[in-house]
């Protein structure tokens, strides 16, 4: 977007974008029409706006009252101890929680101004725009090529072959696998498999990539490669990452949210809650909340 653009122009672009997002999320979307909302997006412009978001599984609250704004083309890290609901929160952002029958989401989860849980919104369309990479690499038991081509084929996107190559190049995997595209993906190393999953995700041109502890099953060298990759990908995508590894959050993210496990007075119910959300540097050097400080300096957790 034009940095010296007039106010009015920016505003009209904003409403135009909101409209296009609404359209993209509604059921009757034409695949060919689908364009990336991120293509013209400025860094830090809000992608997600969470207002009092909470999730419960079978009536038990897992995370409660999270309000935060997630910016475009930035890496936003969610950190916190086990059970603080950071993965649960992440799964709200592309409606993966819908796959758990007992899950319920409260509050407002705005994506470019549209409530992701609005009545008109189709979760399948949401996931086309907001991709996800999981904790354990989960390539399909198919060839490397078919893994990447799966998304474009299913969504009916054009130029599948070209997309596969582009996605593999973007995931820094092309040179390693270009001679064995027909080999089964399970023959790759764990780190390669995870990069394959990232490539599979970007092959369908998402707007946002959610990563749920993408390096927790990988050795440090493979993790480093994924981190480098994330820094490259944030040029084109907005990334939200859940990580156990505080150094990783400090290294790659622009903003960091710290969540904590809260207990009620009976100590029977526990849920996750957002403590602090700020620039990563501030969270790690000069946090406002003492609980954040204790956690990032290693005093607890």
């Amino acid at each position, binding site marked *: 977007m034009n940095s010296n653009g007039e106010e009015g122009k920016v505003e009209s672009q904003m409403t135009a974008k909101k409209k296009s997002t609404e359209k993209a999320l509604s059921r009757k979307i034409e695949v060919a029409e689908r364009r990336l909302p991120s293509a013209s997006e400025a860094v830090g412009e809000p992608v997600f706006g969470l207002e009092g978001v909470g999730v419960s599984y079978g009536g038990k609250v897992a995370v409660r009252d999270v309000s935060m704004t997630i910016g475009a083309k930035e890496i936003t890290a969610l950190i916190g101890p086990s059970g603080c609901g950071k993965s649960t929160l992440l799964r709200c952002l592309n409606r*993966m929680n819908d796959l758990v*029958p007992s899950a319920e989401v409260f509050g407002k989860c705005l994506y470019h101004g549209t409530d992701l849980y609005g009545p008109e919104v189709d979760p399948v369309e949401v996931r086309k725009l907001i991709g996800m990479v999981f904790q354990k690499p*989960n390539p399909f038991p198919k060839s490397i090529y078919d893994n990447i081509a*799966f998304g474009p084929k*299913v969504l009916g996107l054009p130029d599948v072959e070209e997309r596969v190559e582009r996605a593999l190049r973007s995931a820094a995997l092309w040179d390693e696998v270009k001679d064995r595209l027909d080999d089964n993906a*399970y023959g790759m190393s764990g780190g390669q498999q995870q990069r394959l999953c990232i490539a*599979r995700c970007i092959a*369908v041109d998402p707007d946002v990539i959610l990563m749920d502890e993408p390096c927790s099953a990988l050795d440090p060298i493979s993790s480093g490669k994924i981190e480098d990759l994330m820094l490259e990908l944030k040029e084109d995508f907005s990334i939200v990452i859940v990580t156990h590894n505080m150094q990783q959050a400090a290294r790659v993210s622009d903003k960091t949210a710290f969540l904590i496990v809260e207990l009620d007075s009976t100590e029977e119910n526990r849920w996750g809650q957002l403590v602090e959300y700020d620039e990563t540097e501030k969270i790690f050097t000069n946090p406002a909340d003492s609980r954040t400080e204790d956690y990032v300096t290693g005093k607890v957790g």
Partner: protein
Amino acid sequence: MEARDALEMARGIGADKPPRSLRSSSPRYGEKVIKYVLVACAVLSVLTTTAIVVSLLVPTIGFFEQVSFGDFFSTESWAPNLEPPSFGVFNIIVGTLSTTLWGLLVAIPVGFLSAIYLSEYASKRVRKVVKPILEVLAGIPTVAFGVFAVTFLSPLVGDAVPGFIKTPPFAAGIAGLAIGLMIVPIISSISDDAMRAVPGGLREGAYALGAGKFTVSTRVVVPAAISGIVASIVLATSRALGETMIVLLAAGKSPNLTLDPGASVQTMTAFIGTTATGDIATGTISYDTIFAVGVVLFVMTLVMNMISIRLVRKFREVYE
């Protein structure tokens, strides 16, 4: 405590006790007995199979000493008990193929789709109710299916499509329909198990790309579970090929060389069933015919199993 002290202490542990013996305290006869019992059980089933094959082969050799291969594998009429006898076995091979084909035509789509429903669509509660009900179907005696076919299915179809059944109430298609209903649970239950064994991570990966439920089911889960699905179909086909009671009751006993579902046919199993329960003397040609037909049936099932194992090896997608 000083590290050195700890080390000293660790060295001292057990120093004043005699060393423990590493020899076994008893000869462990139990282990040996268990091993022999297990071997005996495994050998028993191998022996049974061998015995069946031998007992089939000996009379079959006797049969082919009297009837030439050419006369047996021919499309002449099938009338081994008439005078003069005629041994065109293709009549009853086609009879078997016909009832099996119509059965599979019913059972594969119904069984496969209900497996997809049970594994991917049904809620836990629905599956808990529906699956046992389906499996009860598999436990119904086949004679009940046969009676059901003759007294219920046949009049029903006959009323719906007048003239379809050439010699009411017997028809290959009616027997096939009943066979199909009988083997649906084999396909649905085993396929459902195979599909539910596919790791949830694969489904999530596909959902996260914006795939719909049906796409995830058919393009991720089914390919990953294909070996189990094919196995269920093979098992069901074996049951259909070997099914005797239903065809005996519902397919009629005229050995017609036709795939017409409305025609009455005789299957290999029905022939064996009727002839073996009739009054025949050992060593006669009628007696040997039973075994020759049995061998054909045996070889057919064997070849089918071999082909399907090949197919599974070729197409399966191995997850981990």
